[in-house]
């Protein structure tokens, strides 16, 4: 009897082993071995404030986390599915009074040097999770301390081992090396009548302005700032198809009969077109502080430089409409003033020197060394 039991037991044992072996032919994923959270590790964030900003993983964990199921496509079309837990990048930025909408690009850099920039279309439409847990478990060694998860976006943006976030505003436009004053510039340009409601005003074509003073370079966007603080980026094609109304109400006004009124900009303060800034003195004197020099009231050269973003140079050239010019070193500028004389003509004045006046001021240019 015992022999029979032994025999049956042995057979069952062998059968079990064989069935198990036969069944184990397929691949199994190795079990993840979640590493413990390293709350002391820090992420470096640039572009958020004047100085670089560091935030630790521990601090990130104190923010309200979201848990989202996320999918991403790999290069081969395969779908990656995870459940990510962590704070939203938006919430991190909010702590400093910023929003992801303030930036055009966000670059993530990993500890191993891998980096990728997330473009604006993704920033605008997706939530970015700084995940410290994936599928309910702490990150593995290959992802610690943080893994970026952007639901619905390609896996190449899901940066593991996140070490640094660079926030870029896209405002890094071409440096401004010339300021042209609109009031003087329009004198020599063709002007045409513009029926504006009940008023017949005068306008110039933006193309004429650009051709005469800014050159034919292709620019990505044209930045227009109004005196009331409104600003917009206009495409080059739209900008060049429009005009600037230079007289009457709301002048200078960027407008075009074929563009909806929502695209018009009234009370233009300045227009940055490539390296040239067209500034309206008339608006400048309304919104910038008034200064007085030798009995003349106007706007400070330093405010013009600051407002338009004119780049720093060792020397500057001040040119008048008739071709006269004055070159000054940066230390000679002092508290230079741009003002209107008794005839309503723009001029540049430097303190204490009567010979340092440029009448019918057209432009200020940075001079290369």
């Amino acid at each position, binding site marked *: 009897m015992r022999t029979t039991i032994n025999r049956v037991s042995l057979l069952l044992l062998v059968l079990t082993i064989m069935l198990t072996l036969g*069944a184990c032919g397929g691949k199994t994923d190795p079990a993840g071995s979640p590493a413990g959270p390293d709350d002391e590790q820090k992420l470096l964030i640039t572009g958020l404030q004047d100085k670089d900003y560091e935030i630790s993983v521990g601090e990130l964990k104190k923010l309200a986390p979201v848990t989202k199921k996320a999918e991403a496509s790999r290069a081969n079309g395969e*779908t990656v599915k995870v459940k990510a837990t962590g704070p939203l990048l938006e919430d991190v930025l909010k702590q400093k009074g910023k929003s992801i909408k303030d930036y055009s690009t966000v670059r993530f850099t990993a500890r191993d040097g891998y980096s990728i920039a997330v473009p604006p279309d993704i920033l605008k439409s997706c939530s970015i999770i700084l995940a410290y847990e994936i599928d309910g478990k702490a990150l593995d060694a290959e992802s610690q301390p943080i893994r970026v998860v952007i639901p619905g976006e390609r896996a190449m943006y899901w940066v593991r081992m996140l070490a640094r976030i660079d926030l870029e505003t896209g405002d890094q436009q071409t440096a401004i090396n010339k300021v042209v004053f609109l009031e003087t510039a329009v004198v020599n340009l063709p002007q045409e009548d513009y029926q504006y409601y009940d008023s017949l005003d005068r306008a110039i074509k933006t193309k004429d302005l650009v051709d005469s003073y800014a050159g034919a370079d292709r620019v990505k966007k044209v930045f227009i700032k109004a005196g009331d603080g409104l600003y917009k980026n206009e495409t080059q094609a739209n900008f060049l198809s429009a005009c600037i109304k230079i007289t009457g109400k709301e002048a200078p006004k960027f407008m075009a009969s074929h563009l909806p009124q929502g695209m018009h900009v009234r009370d233009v303060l300045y227009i940055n077109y490539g390296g040239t800034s067209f500034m309206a003195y008339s608006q400048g004197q309304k919104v910038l502080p008034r200064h007085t020099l030798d009995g003349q009231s106007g706007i400070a050269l330093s405010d013009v430089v600051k407002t338009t973003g004119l780049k720093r140079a060792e020397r500057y050239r001040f040119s008048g409409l008739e071709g006269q010019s004055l070159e000054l070193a940066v230390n000679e500028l002092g508290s230079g003033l741009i003002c209107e004389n008794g005839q309503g003509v723009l001029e540049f004045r430097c303190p204490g020197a009567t010979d340092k006046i440029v009448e019918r001021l057209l432009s200020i240019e940075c001079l290369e060394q």
Partner: protein
Amino acid sequence: MNRRNWLLAIGLGLLGFVIGGLFFGIYRQPSGYIPPLKVVGDVARVVKLEDPKQMGELHDVSYDGHKYQAIKLMDIIEAAQPIASPEQIILVGSDGFSSAFPAQGLDESYITFTGKNGWEAINLNHPVNSNVKMLQEIVVVSDGSSPDFGLTIINPDKDLITITPGQLHARTLLEYPYAEGMASVENGGKTYTSSVYTRRKVFKPTDLVPDVKGVMMLVMGTNGEHRFLEPRDYLELKDNYFSYLQPEEHSQIDQVKGVVIDPPTTSIMDACYDARHFLENGEKVLVVVLEGFTYSQYTDAIANGHAAFLKKTAPAVKATGVYPLEGKVWLAAMLSGASPEENGIITEKDQDLKVPSLFGTAAQLKKPALFLHSGPRMLNTEIEPLLVDCTNPGGSADDYLYALVLDELGQNYELIVVRFNGIAFNRERYGDQAGPTRAAITANDKYLEDIAARWPGRIIIIGSPGERSERKFTCNSVFVPYLRLK
């Protein structure tokens, strides 16, 4: 244990190994990578097959001397919820080889997955060339009868084309290498970079209407986007919708509903800027919104003598509206001067404007303002609206509104916005050309005449698509009359 028993044990063990292998060979997941097979085109839901058993039951199919376990093609298509009636099915292989056949008679059509050919079509009743191997996509092409699916291109005069994603899959498309981004990594002091591109199926709106030469193109998206297309921009065919792609700026509209080629220069959003201009000029402004009054109804009413007052005034200009085609969405765009995407009113449920409205401008200028309409509160603006909830048995409260406006004209208001909805109500109940609709137009025309005779300021009159009007993006729903009266 004797030798005989050992042999028996080994024999049984081997048998167990074979049975175990067979069992798990049949029921375990296919090992290795399975490329996804997508069902796209005119479907409500894009189905992505990554597992042969994803659809449930497999059918045994014999073909060309081989046995397969396969999914019924109709089951896959039904899971994707076709829009309207499927007319054609296109099977697309990874090498671009495609086979198209009618969507009827698919009883003996199957899809299987094999290690050798990947996803593979087995059409027992169709010609052999329909059995596409290495299948990547199944495109469902509808008969186009769904009224609100696809992309419509119009110009100010007519509807040019409506095309569905499925229909476009069968046409010529450009493959554009869209730069997704550049990744870099530092190794041994050197930086190695890799630029990533995705190949996008793109086209220009004018590719679909080659006879039309457009200078400006206005693109409207389902989330209230309102953008002018740049010459270098494209529309992109996605799985079951269209998007707008601006390659240089990396901006896009995810779901494009329509394109207006050479749109009129006037927009309904101009109402805000015009009114602001008049207010700043010290003039009083009355804005009258006529719900349900489209440009074609305006011309019809003028031609057939249903709007004697409007006929006497300066002709209306054609103004472009916004998308979605909802009365409240349009009203918000008129009052804010901003597109739905910018002002935050995209659906009938939205109430809070994200940008200042005309009433905010009036408040800034210290001009008393009044906002009058019937029914429940539509928008939260800088002022409390005066609501008229007394409706006639007929459904419209226009006569009450009219009486109220006449009363208020004598007050000290410098800005009044009033919205009449009688035309929309009758149009939706009886139709565009029905007697009650025309009568409502005539009644509104008379109201306007009486109001204009007593109002000592400017009047802006604008049409709007109505609250429950058809949502189809057409010439008739997108353009409305716009009048500025002194």
